[in-house]
């Protein structure tokens, strides 16, 4: 009982300590130490099996190339991610949680064990072979079924040793590695001295008539790729103990690529020598030594090999038992080791593991190759050498790697497709080549490339990238967006697709486009559009058809849909309400190359379906560019999806007026004010008036929900942030004053009063202006801040403080760029308006944004400030302070 308790406790500690990140001061291994440990792992007796297998395929020279160069080539690539293990002191099983999710990782662990554990059945088979062969040399013939009894006895003894726990295993390892080295040395000496050197050097296998030499060589390379790649499971725990990245990396490469490969070659030499002497190729070192030297040497080597095989079986059961225990924490270590023992025993009962050695190698590689590719791409190209350790260890509150209920669907799909891809190239069971061209790359390497490229491409799709990179806070991409980059012309191949998407999107809303004064107007020209909702981006391309155009877009669109696609559809990225000189240069380039430039000058969606004031700068720009000015006034877009509730309203009907307001001849003659006046006149709109005039019925029951964001002040009691909405009603939570929104967008009080929504909206503006004038306006609240530096990711800046008063905005926070607590100032006069959101992307709630040249800060209320944070009121104050409204 006491012993049982001790083993369990030991294993618990081993699992716990074995998974903790190893601190720099605790690191034990320099390069040589790690090399010796990893070499010890690689030189198990299965190296001989591998060597004799290779000798059946190719001549000795090609065998040498395969064993050393193929192994080193593959190791140089797939060992690179080991750098992360060294850097963070963790093994890859912890890291894999980021690639597959914690629960997905459990499945992968089981799969890895399933494909890896046949190695130990090979050991048991070798043990049984050794025993049988040697007894036969001494004239002892065993009964039928003795082979199975012997191999099972290896399983049983190995399992018993593993069950005895850490200290027994430690001793086993101490004895095992020198023993294996001793056996290896003996095999080398006997192998190279018992046959002439040129027999080995010039060796060529006796191939069947239909055998293809090239295919055999590729199979050799494949076998070596597979051999080194499938050993990674057992070696994963060593690099985290290394003192430098270089030592961990090169110890892994040379441990397998040099030491491990050397013993593979030794196995091949042994097999060639045996064939030369006896005419029969064997992979049993005991038999070789007994045959090629003296039976007494065979007898002593028997003891060595027997213990080596049992020891390898024991160490394997222990390593994978601990690995399983760290994954399945509630299961008993003993039970897990027994399950592993039963699995090996079943493989021994099957009895064909040696016969299918090559198949099992390739099947193992089918799993390991995509796994290695995922690690490689994940580490270098997706997570950029950073990991959120707290999420990897599933610490409370750190859930970046939970994905879909603990499974990273993307990683799992890539693994499955990578596996399937290998089988499409080669059937490892029957040895049938399905695709000879890809087979030349070897199934393992082809699968490695395929999976890596697939994972990388998927990670470039914005939605998938956001799914995979929930840990951006740990390693955000801080590179500022390149505003200076010349925008490409709208991609001609994308244009029909874009039009088709636009057509499909607008079709339920019966879009009607009217064109005025557009006869003879050809690009280049400048388009100023009204800005109501995202629908604007679908209506405008259809209105401008057949011409291609470029559009100005806020950077968050690039983040949402992906930079590549946004550039292909002609978007110029910028940040709102900054003085962006690069944008002006790029607009000029668009015009100079003869295209249409579309600008939404309000730079924000209409809050209640009415236009904002426009600034003279848009008229000045038109004069500078000296091209015709066209306006596009779109109606119904707001009604279809108002910014305060992004649910689509099917009853909306769309209409757009495209009109040339200034011809090329007029552009020099008209003054800035005259041009501005013409543009402003055409871009004046009132969506609720349009709804009423055209009797557009929007009867969704939830039609008023969210309206309290723009209509925040109670008309009766005069309190700010008083309104709430439900269904078609907007109600004051203090005085109970209530209005019902009818199906034509009007508000009705129970007393019969009818209110036009934009009137209420503008009525509120007056109070804010008054507050500002009297110096009473001040907002000073805690906020949550996310920065958007580029089109790749948001950066969590944590909590900060936002102050807004007559001097402008102050944002106090931990600046991720400088890593200092700083206050950014945005002067009142520098901003004529403010970008606001009421429920950002339909799930993040209300926010405002403030921009510098390199960052857009998305500012959300905290729980504490939620009740006093209203984007509309902040916008009113900003526009008044910035001079947009007098």
């Amino acid at each position, binding site marked *: 009982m006491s012993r049982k308790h001790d083993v369990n406790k030991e294993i618990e500690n081993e699992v716990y300590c074995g998974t*903790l*990140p190893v*601190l720099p001061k605790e690191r034990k291994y320099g390069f040589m130490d790690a090399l010796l440990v990893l070499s010890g792992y690689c030189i198990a007796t299965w190296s001989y099996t591998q060597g004799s297998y290779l000798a059946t395929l190719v001549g000795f020279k090609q065998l040498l*190339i395969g064993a050393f160069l*193929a192994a080193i*080539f593959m190791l140089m690539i797939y060992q690179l991610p080991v750098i992360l293990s060294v850097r*963070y002191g963790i093994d890859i099983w912890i890291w894999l949680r980021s690639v597959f999710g914690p629960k997905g990782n459990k499945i992968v662990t089981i799969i890895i064990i399933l494909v890896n554990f046949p190695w130990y059945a090979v050991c048991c088979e070798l043990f049984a072979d050794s025993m049988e062969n040697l007894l036969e040399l001494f004239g002892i013939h065993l009964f039928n079924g003795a082979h199975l009894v012997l191999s099972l006895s290896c399983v049983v003894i190995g399992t018993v040793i593993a069950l005895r726990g850490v200290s027994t295993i430690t001793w086993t390892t101490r004895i095992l590695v020198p023993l294996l080295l001793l056996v290896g040395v003996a095999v080398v000496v006997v192998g190279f001295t018992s046959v002439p050197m040129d027999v080995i050097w010039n060796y060529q296998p006796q191939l069947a008539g239909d055998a293809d030499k090239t295919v055999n060589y590729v199979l050799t390379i494949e076998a070596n790729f597979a051999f080194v790649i499938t050993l990674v499971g057992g070696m994963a725990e060593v690099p985290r103990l290394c*003192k430098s*990245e*270089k030592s961990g990396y090169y110890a892994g490469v040379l441990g397998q690529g040099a030491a491990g490969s050397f013993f593979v070659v030794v196995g091949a030499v042994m097999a060639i020598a045996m064939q030369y002497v006896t005419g029969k190729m064997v992979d049993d070192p005991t038999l070789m030594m007994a045959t090629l030297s003296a039976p007494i040497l065979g007898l002593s080597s028997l003891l060595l090999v027997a213990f080596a095989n049992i020891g390898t079986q024991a160490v394997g059961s222990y390593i994978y038992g601990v690995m399983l225990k760290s994954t399945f924490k509630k299961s008993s270590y003993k039970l897990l080791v027994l399950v592993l023992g039963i699995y090996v025993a079943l493989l021994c009962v099957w009895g064909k593991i040696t016969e299918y050695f090559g198949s099992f190698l390739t099947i193992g590689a089918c799993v390991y190759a995509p796994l290695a590719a995922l690690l490689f791409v994940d580490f270098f190209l997706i997570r950029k050498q950073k990991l959120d350790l707290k999420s990897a260890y599933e610490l409370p509150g750190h859930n970046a790697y939970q994905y879909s209920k603990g499974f990273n669907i993307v990683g799992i799909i890539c693994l499955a497709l990578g596996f399937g891809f290998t089988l499409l190239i080669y059937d490892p069971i029957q040895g049938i080549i399905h695709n000879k061209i890809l087979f030349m790359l070897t199934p393992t390497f082809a699968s490695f490339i395929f999976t890596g490229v697939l994972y990388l491409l998927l990670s470039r799709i914005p939605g998938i990238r956001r799914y995979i990179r929930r840990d951006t806070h740990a390693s955000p991409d801080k590179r500022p967006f390149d505003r200076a980059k010349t925008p490409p012309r709208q991609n001609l191949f994308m244009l029909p697709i874009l039009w088709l998407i636009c057509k499909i999107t607008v079709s339920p809303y019966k879009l009607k486009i009217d064109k005025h004064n557009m006869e003879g107007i050809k690009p280049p020209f400048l388009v100023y559009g009204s800005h109501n909702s995202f629908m604007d981006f679908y209506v405008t391309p259809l209105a401008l058809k057949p011409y291609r155009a470029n559009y100005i877009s806020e950077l968050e669109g690039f983040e949402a849909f992906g930079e590549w696609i946004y550039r292909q559809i002609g978007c110029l990225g910028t940040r709102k309400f900054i003085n962006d000189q690069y944008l002006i240069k790029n607009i000029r380039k668009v015009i100079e190359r003869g295209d249409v430039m579309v600008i939404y000058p309000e730079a924000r969606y209409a809050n209640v379906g009415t236009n904002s004031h426009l600034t003279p700068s848009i008229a000045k720009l038109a004069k500078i560019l000296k091209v015709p000015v066209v306006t596009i006034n779109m109606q119904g877009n707001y009604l279809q999806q108002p910014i305060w509730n992004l649910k689509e309203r099917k009853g909306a009907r769309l209409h757009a007026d495209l009109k040339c307001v200034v011809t090329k001849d007029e552009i020099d003659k008209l003054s800035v004010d005259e041009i501005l006046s013409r543009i402003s006149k055409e871009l004046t709109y009132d969506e609720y008036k349009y709804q009423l005039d055209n009797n557009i019925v929007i009867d969704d029951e939830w039609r008023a929900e969210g309206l309290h964001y723009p209509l925040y002040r109670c008309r009766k009691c005069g309190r700010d942030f008083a309104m709430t909405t439900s269904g078609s009603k907007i109600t004051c939570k203090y005085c109970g004053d209530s209005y019902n929104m009818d199906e034509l967008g009007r508000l009705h009080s129970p007393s019969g009063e009818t209110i036009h929504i934009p009137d209420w909206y503008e009525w509120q503006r007056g109070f804010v202006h008054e507050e500002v004038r009297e110096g009473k306006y001040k907002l000073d609240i805690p906020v949550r801040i996310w920065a958007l530096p580029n089109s790749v990711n948001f950066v969590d800046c944590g909590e900060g403080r936002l102050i807004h008063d007559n001097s402008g905005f102050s944002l106090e926070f931990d600046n991720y760029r400088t890593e200092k607590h700083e206050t950014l100032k945005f002067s009142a006069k520098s901003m004529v308006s403010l970008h606001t959101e009421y429920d950002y992307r339909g799930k993040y709630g209300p926010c405002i944004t403030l921009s510098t040249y390199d960052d857009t800060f998305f500012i959300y209320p905290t729980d504490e400030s939620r009740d006093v944070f209203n984007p509309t009121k902040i916008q009113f104050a900003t526009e008044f302070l910035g001079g947009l409204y007098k």
Partner: protein
Amino acid sequence: MDRDNELESRIDEILKAEKENKIPRMTKRDYIIAAVITVISLLGIIGGFLL
């Protein structure tokens, strides 16, 4: 809970060590050497087809 605390403090220490480069990083030179060895190995493998 104690284990969580220990884990968290270890992680903080690891991240601090990372910032201070306490575990020597692979340098650009190391990566170049690795790339050269990889290319040589690949050329060797391709050369093997000729044997």
